[in-house]
């Protein structure tokens, strides 16, 4: 599930080496301020960025909505009835068909086959999906920067070991790898030294997604470090007696920031999609925690009699990923100096 090819990489030139004429910052404005200004002019990116903020706010408000609906995401209401438009209706009929959207506090978006409130589960699912998406992207970014920098800076056998390991991961279908790890860790949990994570924990899919996505970012980072290590400012630092660690942290890392920033929203979107896919297949978020993927999976069996069970989480997934992708594209355009040229023309 590649999320981007190398063309997504921003040109490193707007950064500190000052190597290229077209990347030179305008007088009085730093490259970051220029990027922000360009982002501010991209209305589509801002709109979708705002949409993402709204989704995050809704997710944070999940407990409030649950209180209003007088339920919890795991509460079953199989035998309950509810008054809709003055008429008493079963939450789940005798033949197992759940109620559709009522557009009122209780069961606003209907119920699922266990009689649980879809709106409440949707919002709690958003919390889980966003938590996994953002945390997994942070894990990915950390590991990718670490491995990419080490491989690119040291080259030789370090590069060979890291790059071949990444090649192996690249060759392995990410979804299958995720399913294999998810299924095997779901029961016994994960134990790495003193760190112990229980089987049903959200951290299991988070770590799995974070690790299996490393390859997408590590390779571009390595490529960029290979290029940066030959620049004059690195030569200068080396001549001044700076060691490898200092060069990596003080000289290279700041120059990788724009690449990481461009990739981050895309990594989050990718992680959310992968989480949904794993949960759909039963290898991601474990019950009773809701997730959009498990909600989709639950809804598929009642596709024609209760379409809301698949439409609602599916729509949320599309909106979130779309918002992150469009905003991510905006960030890329803002940080890419070629965008500036296009913009000014």
């Amino acid at each position, binding site marked *: 599930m590649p999320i981007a090819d190398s063309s997504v990489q921003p040109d490193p030139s707007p950064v500190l080496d000052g190597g290229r004429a077209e990347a030179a910052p305008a007088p009085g404005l730093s490259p970051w301020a220029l990027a922000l200004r360009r982002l501010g002019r991209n209305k589509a990116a801002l709109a979708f960025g705002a949409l993402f903020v709204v989704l995050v706010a809704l997710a944070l408000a999940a407990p409030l909505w649950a209180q209003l609906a007088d339920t919890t995401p795991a509460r*079953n209401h*199989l035998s309950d009835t509810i008054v809709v438009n003055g008429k008493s209706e079963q939450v789940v009929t*005798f033949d*197992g068909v759940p109620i559709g959207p009522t557009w009122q506090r209780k069961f606003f978006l209907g119920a699922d*086959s266990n009689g649980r409130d879809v709106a409440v589960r949707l919002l709690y699912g958003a919390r889980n999906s966003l938590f996994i998406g953002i945390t997994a992207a942070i894990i990915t970014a950390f590991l990718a920067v670490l491995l990419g920098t080490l491989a690119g800076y040291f080259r030789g056998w370090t590069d060979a070991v890291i790059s071949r390991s990444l090649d192996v991961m690249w060759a392995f279908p990410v979804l299958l790898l995720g399913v294999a790890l998810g299924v095997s860790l779901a029961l016994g949990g994960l134990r790495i030294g003193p760190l112990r994570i229980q089987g049903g924990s959200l951290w299991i899919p988070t770590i799995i997604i974070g690790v299996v996505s490393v390859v997408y970012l590590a390779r571009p980072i390595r490529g960029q470090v290979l290029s940066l290590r030959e620049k004059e400012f690195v030569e200068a630092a080396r001549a001044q007696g700076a060691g490898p660690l200092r060069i990596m942290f003080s000289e290279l890392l700041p120059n990788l920031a724009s690449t990481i920033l461009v990739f981050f929203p895309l990594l989050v979107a990718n992680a959310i999609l992968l989480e949904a896919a794993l949960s759909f297949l039963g290898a991601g978020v474990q*019950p*009773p925690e809701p997730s959009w993927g498990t909600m989709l999976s639950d809804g598929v*069996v009642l596709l024609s009699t209760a379409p809301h069970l698949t439409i609602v989480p599916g729509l949320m997934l599309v909106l979130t990923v779309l918002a992150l992708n469009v905003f991510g594209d905006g960030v890329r355009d803002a940080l890419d100096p070629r965008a500036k040229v296009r913009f000014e023309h």
Partner: protein
Amino acid sequence: MPRSLRGVVCLSFACAAMFGLTACGGDDDEGSAGTTAGGAGATDAAGRTGGTIKTAYTSFPDYLDPALSYTQEGWQTMWTVYTPLLTYKHDEGAEGATLVPGLAEAMPEISDDGKTYTLKLRQGLKYSDGTAVKASDFEHTIKRVLNLESGGSSFYLAIAGAEKYVEDGKARADISGIETDDRTGAITINLTEPDGRFPYILTMNFAGLVPGDTPFQNMTKDPPPGVGPYRFENVRVNRGYDLVKVADFDVPDQAVGKLDKIEVDIVKNRRRQTQDTIQNKLDYMSDPPAADQLREVRARYAGKRYKEFVTNSTYYYFLNHRIAPFDDEKARQAVNYAIDKRAIARLFGGLLEPGCNFLPPGMKGYEKIDPCPWGDPTAAPNVERARELVREAGLEGDSVTVFGNDEPESRSLAEYLSDVLNDIGFKAKPRIVEASVYFTTIGNQKTRAQLGVTNWFQDFPHPGNFMFLVDGDSIQSTNNQNFGNVDDPQVNRLLDAANRNADIDEVADEYAQADRLIVEGAHVAPYGHRKLTVFYSERIDFENCTVWHPVYNLDFTNLCLK
């Protein structure tokens, strides 16, 4: 056999309908035994003979080899191809569960000590390829079951010498407890100890006779010939096969097929199966219609092309007696008080008959426990009483993990119970295990599964085939099927005595008593019995040709076109 729900119904090894068909809307006059072969007693039931139909299964049978097949799809088919020494009548309800001679001339003579069974093969029998049937083929048939490590091999380890045969691992070696005489057709079987269930074990498809030269290997690609009203043709592994009528099948009192050919195709998508059946492109679908099409099918076709049957199955939550908090009877009682059986039936789309007993209604020994000590199964649960019991026992806030597998129904059941337990004071969460390893996981004592979802479909219509699930003598450290480690001395004593008696009628009361003790002691939390369905095209004669057999479900030999 516990079932992991694949789809909805490729789940039973041997599902059965209820004996008292009137209770599920059955018609006593409907679907009586079909055409029988041979002798002056041959009769023609209503419904024409001849023609070809198209049917669909969601998955290919596990094997098309009688020694190995252990799924409902396999057994339903296999019964029409391989006839054992003893078999069942091709009929519904209690009649269908009646043992009759199959390839044996008569029912077995059982020695006074209950250890020796003597039978005699009918004369002049031939396999579908024309080969003569010999008495020694029976021993070869059992050897294949044991040698191939079939799922059914444990049933035949009661035969003297069977364990040694398995230990030695020599395929052609002799099983000392089976003596046959090809000249006279005599077959003598010696058991290591009396087992009242053994006549039923002889009726299982595993014991369906195959020729003595059938290789000791899985023959699914080229199934061996059998003695039965149909034979396999055009086997396409994982895609389908045909059942073609054996023109010269002539075994006295055995049903012959009405249809000339039954084409079986594997169609993974149940929605497509349902749609094709509605549109008459498919004549019969084995699994229930897809969940989201069930309402429409019920509304439009019930009583005309669609019917539901209660099977001899029990769905229940096991409660582990060896692990807190369910080592405390009050905790187990609380679960029984709290579960809402009406609610659970909705998780099955209505294809579950709520019940209180552990034994299913169609089983000998079933006596409806009424009033149910935990409340009417069709009424609201007593959640308040459950909360009180948890409080009284000082178990509030105790952590509980509810095991279920990743099949949709099992997962829903685990999530439902988890919610119920939280409601009555426990701190519960579900744990979902991959379906293919679920039963071995919860059957391993090291897992320390506190409670979880399970079910059982009969292998044969004998209460002992259910009660061993709660028999203390059947507890094992691995592959345990008494998941809750139920070990009630009173129940154990009753079962020990009843299991030795070959006459079910004589020991039905003991089984009923054991059933009551299991329920009243809150040893498990049973909640109902599964319903299965038939759904036909317009071409099938629904009125006259539907026979729901208590062991093999829809009887193919009775199916016919209008």
